[in-house]
């Protein structure tokens, strides 16, 4: 299964988790997501998600002047964002647990035999 399809549902969670570790600016967050193994994630998807989480109040942002390049817009997690992260982490773990349990279940019936 294409991991980008799976990612769509949990990109908020992944971004929140990364920013919660340490405040970061757009490209920094993207790099850390990719470094963690989510290399199929799109640039614009991450930046858009950051903007949306900021607009919904889960993230805060501040500008840090940079000496060698443009200013950087850093994002940090707010209290509301932490609550959201906690909730979504639980949802994800529960969901992943169910799916994992489903996949690990030993096969009891042979589909071919059942239909015959």
């Amino acid at each position, binding site marked *: 299964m294409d991991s980008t399809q799976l990612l769509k549902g949990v*990109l908020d969670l992944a971004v929140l988790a990364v920013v919660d570790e340490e405040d970061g*600016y*757009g*490209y920094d967050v*993207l*790099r850390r997501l990719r470094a963690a193994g989510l290399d199929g994630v*799109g*640039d*614009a*998807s*991450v*930046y*858009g*998600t950051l*903007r*949306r989480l*900021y*607009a919904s109040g889960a993230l805060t942002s501040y*500008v840090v002047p*940079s000496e060698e*390049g*443009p*200013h*950087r*817009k850093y994002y940090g997690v707010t209290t509301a964002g932490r609550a959201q992260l906690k909730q979504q982490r639980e949802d994800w773990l529960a969901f992943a647990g169910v799916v994992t349990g489903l996949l690990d279940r030993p096969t009891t019936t042979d589909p071919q035999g059942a239909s015959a």
Partner: protein
Amino acid sequence: MNEPTIRLEVRPEVAAFVDQVRARLADLGDEEREELVGGLEGDIDELVSDGGSVAELGDPRAYADELRAAAGLERMRRVEPVVGHAPAVRAPFRTQLAALTERVLDGSRRVWDELVSVPGLRLLWEVAVALRPAWWLVRAWAAVQLLSLLTSTDGRIDVLPRVGPPGFALGVLLVAVVVSVQIGRGRLWPGTRLSSLFPRLLLLGLNVLAVFVLLVVVPLVPTQDRMSSTFEHGYSMGSGGDLRGSGLMYRGAPVENVFPYDTQGNPLTGVQLFDQDGRPLQLARHAHFRSDGAEDVWTVTYPWFNGGQALRNVVPLPGREQTTERVAPGAWTSANPPALPLPPLAVVPPATLPLPGSAETAATDDSENAEGR
């Protein structure tokens, strides 16, 4: 935060890319758009510093769409197929053509939207949008004028289209207005299906046609000034009479009658006039109006005849005074038959040709010679 400083520090290809992304998001409010795009220069610039390239980001418009979708902002307009997601199998030519047409239309629309979002033009555009119902009325009128042009025999144009009797024309116009307005409001096909290519093209074509019809029709519509002059002209010619240009003209005005004189200067009657190609020089039917208070008096000219055929190229034309402006069939047998008018001048100076060989000049020369001997 100082915007120009940021720009200077960003690589030009990055700035160009971000500008294209920004343009794609033109429908968003300034604040919302900058919220989305702000910091993007820095992020992409760093990507390039890291060994990446702007090219690997793909089409800036697709990038903008992804950014918008991830940010949870709805597109303000029709959802378009994202460029760069073309199907792997080559689509049939017709489908490709349709897609291309659609892209051209969407592209033009986008360019237009960006153009009219310039602050100076935005106000004008908003006024124009508010005036759309006026266009719905005008194009309905144009449609009926087109109908009238196609069905009319003389190609004449009036403010009220000439389709059948005036009451009927008004009805047709009313129906056209209702149809046009309902299409404009998106209540009537093709106005209801503007997400599909064919209705969209059809509506575009119809609107362009309406503009063309207006360009043709409007200059032909008689203005108040021309209307009254046409009216007077028609009046002076007799309302049942021929219109301007159908008879002998002199300095832009129809000649009412012609009085020929011979070379001696004496008036002639019954002279037939032909032009250089042997065509009869017809005098237009003419009725001259004068009111003496109690009743209308018309002075009307009558033709000469060759058997049953009326000749209006034989001068002077006879005339008579009567109470209507029309040529009466029984005029010649009435108590008041047409009569030859008196010439305006009893005699005129004689005329000669200076050429030898002409009978007149030759005779004069001879007599002079005889006297001289």
